[in-house]
């Protein structure tokens, strides 16, 4: 009896868990820093085309997104549509959109705003060209064709 008891009583010394909170904090901070909050819900389906010669957009605060692609909801058909902010938009909505985005920025930052076109790769150029023309008319000239990084 006493022989067994002896064995059981000699427990392994507990491993210090003092560093655990550090690890968890590390995880937490990592995700806090890297997570990008999606500002808009996408109403259109977008598969970006691939390109190799890409430039990374530096200042995220100065990028406005414009989405073009077939609607996610099948009931709305398969024709590509444009989405600005979180709703479908027509060509004539571009100008007010550009103006509104310029107004909420500092004046000096306005020339540095980039409009990033996130366009589905199966879209015809027609709508893209029209959108580009509208952007030119609104004097929003700095644009980016958003692509995924190819090989």
């Amino acid at each position, binding site marked *: 009896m006493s022989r067994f008891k002896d064995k059981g*009583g000699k*427990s*392994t010394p*507990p*491993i210090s*868990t003092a*560093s*655990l909170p550090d*690890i*968890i904090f*590390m*995880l937490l901070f*990592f*995700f806090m820093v*890297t997570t*990008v909050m999606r500002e808009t819900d996408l109403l259109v389906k977008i598969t970006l*085309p*691939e*390109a*190799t*010669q*890409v*430039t*990374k*957009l530096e200042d*995220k605060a100065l*990028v406005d*997104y414009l989405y073009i692609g077939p609607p996610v909801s099948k009931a709305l058909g398969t024709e590509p549509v444009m989405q600005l902010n979180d709703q479908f938009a027509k060509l004539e909505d571009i100008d007010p959109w550009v103006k509104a985005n310029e107004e909420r920025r500092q004046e000096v930052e306005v020339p540095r705003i*980039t409009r*990033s*076109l996130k*366009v*589905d*790769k*199966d*879209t*015809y*150029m*027609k709508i*893209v*060209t*029209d959108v*580009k*023309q509208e*952007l*030119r*008319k609104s*004097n*929003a*000239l*700095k*644009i*980016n*064709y*958003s*692509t*995924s*990084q190819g090989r």
Partner: protein
Amino acid sequence: MLKKRKTAGVQEINAGSMADIAFLLLIFFLVTTTMDTDAGILRLLPPIVEDVIDPDVVKERNVYIVLVNDADQLLVEGQPMDIKDLREGAKEFMTNPDNSEDLPEKKRITAAECNQKIAEFKGGAAGATSEKDKQTYRELAEKWQDKLEAVQLLGEYMELPGSAVISLQTGSKTSYDMYVKVQNELEAGISELRNELSKSKFDRKFDELDDKNDDDKPLIKAVRLVYPQRISEAEPVEVVR
């Protein structure tokens, strides 16, 4: 006896392996997380101008016309072309290695010429009466100053004419995928040229030059001056099949 047992008490749960689990998680996410930085092909649209430049002013040899039709086929300078040849085509247009009659005429830029022009325009600025003329002269002098700096860094180089441009036109049913591919190839052609030049002169590729580093800035500027990125997003034109 009983008391002794109590102090031995409830055994602490071994939490040592928790750290391992956390690390596992951390590594998993480190590997799988793609940081959602938006990347793409940056372009500057031309502003809408009322008075369109007379097409006669721009010589035909100075424009590299790339047409993409509704069936995603390429017509480059009037000849059908495969997308994989476009990069070389663009490079040939930018360099004109054989001094061909159909490609832009290149001009040798020398330090002597730069100095002469700078002096000339500076004199012009000093002699000009109206403020507007002075401004124009000053801008011209600055332009030649930039060229002089490029000559100092790169040696004498061949300059593309100011009107040399790659013009890209698409049909209304061209797919966006194709359009991006074409843009990508043109961009790749120019960046290859820049890389070659930079590698031969500075022993570093153009991509490796850091635009935030003050030592690199003039190098970047010089290389850009030799191989400017002029891809025009022309006015939409109907392209027939």
